[in-house]
């Protein structure tokens, strides 16, 4: 799409700044997820504590971003694509903030698990984590580049993550049925899996807002029918 610039270069700069801030915030959340997962797989609880400490930064940046968007709404009174861009940005930053919280949840469970003997090698969880990180990246790339194809990829990945979550759940169920001593650990792992699945949901939420931004159509709360 041919991109025209605003007559007001200040306005142009403000919008660009929102993009940059969102990319940065997205990178912070990805890093938090990665670190929380490393804490689990490498049985290093320092990583997890770092995730918890750094969540303040994510919260702070989310609040600042939201404030910037509200300022633009008030002072620039954006219309059309600018309006859709700003409302989308506000939603995205909210999703990223929640993703940060889920990384913290994962970190907390990792600390618990690290104090207990290893139940099983982690195979599917890291796969899930790398999938959700890719979803976050794709949904943000879709936003920055107004790319509908990438939003579709996010939707596809969400399905895979859902399936993995269910598979992990079933597998852990057999552990618990076999040996009740595994129940506590199995539940922690399930909770981690559930948090990853919720992160995938938030990424899908971002992608849906991007679809709205590009097409003007809301796809939330309905099955996507892009063929």
């Amino acid at each position: 799409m041919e991109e025209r610039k605003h007559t007001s270069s200040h306005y142009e700069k403000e919008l660009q700044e929102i993009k940059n801030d969102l990319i940065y915030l997205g990178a912070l959340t990805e890093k938090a997820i990665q670190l929380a997962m490393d804490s689990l797989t490498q049985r290093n609880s320092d990583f997890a504590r770092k995730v918890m400490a750094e969540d303040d930064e994510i919260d702070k940046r989310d609040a600042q971003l939201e404030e910037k968007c509200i300022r633009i709404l008030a002072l620039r009174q954006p219309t059309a694509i600018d309006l859709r861009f700003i409302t989308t940005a506000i939603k995205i930053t909210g999703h990223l903030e929640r993703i940060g919280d889920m990384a913290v949840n994962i970190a907390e469970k990792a600390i618990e698990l690290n104090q207990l003997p290893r139940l099983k090698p982690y195979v599917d969880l890291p796969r899930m984590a790398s999938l959700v990180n890719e979803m976050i990246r794709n949904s943000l790339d879709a936003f920055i580049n107004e790319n509908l194809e990438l939003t579709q990829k996010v939707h596809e990945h969400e399905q895979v993550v859902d399936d993995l979550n269910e598979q992990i759940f079933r597998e852990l169920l057999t552990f618990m049925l076999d040996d009740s001593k595994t129940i506590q650990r199995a539940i922690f792992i399930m909770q981690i899996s559930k948090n990853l699945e919720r992160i995938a949901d938030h990424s899908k939420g971002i992608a849906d807002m991007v679809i709205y931004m590009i097409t003007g159509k809301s796809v939330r709360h309905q099955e996507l029918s892009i063929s």
Partner: protein
Amino acid sequence: MDANIIIKLKNVNFYYGENRALTDITMNYRKNKVTALIGPSGCGKSTLLRLLNRMNDLIDGTRVEGEILYEDKNIYSPDLDPVEIRRKIGMVFQKPNPFPKTIYNNIAYGPKLNRVGSANLDELVEQSLKQAVLWDEVKDILNQSAMNLSGGQQQRLCIARALAMKPDILLMDEPTSALDPISTAKIEELVEELKKVYTIIIVTHNMQQAARISDETAFFYLGNLIEYNKTEKIFTKPDVKQTEDYITGRFG
């Protein structure tokens, strides 16, 4: 004609001498709606507005092609009286232009001349001023000069003057561009009231104003109608990229 449509333009071209100011305009205006005409300076908004009540007739060397139907009659057909058309299709201009007369006579002058509602002029004056939400401010000074009113009051007086002619349609060419925010808000409020009875076509350079008060918006560029859509659509997701560039300030 569809009962909801009050004016219909079919393939209208308009020329000032050799220069074409409007190109192949086809559009319908809906009854009891507010239609906003937007577009960059010189795109032909005022020209189009003046075309609708034959004000362009007053300019030498102009020429119209195509059809402009007002209630099924071509307003440019020779057997229609332009004065009668201007009575039915009133106009309010950018700068308030009261006559150098009393407030009362500003309103009464036209009806007296045209014998509109001649039964009771006092009543007509009061009614028109009330419709223009000016009555309370001027009811005790009706015999003072209109020139002493504030700009915002003068503009509402001009609206009252147009309403006193009992028009069907009110054309407004940037009616608030010379007014402060409060007076502007009053005129905008008035427009929302008036559309219950009248059809309003308004030219504005204020995008937020178009968004606030109009039901439909038409975007013009270089004498062409680029997009004509529901206002909500135009300001959230216009169909044409050029429209989007314009209303978001990415033009020129």
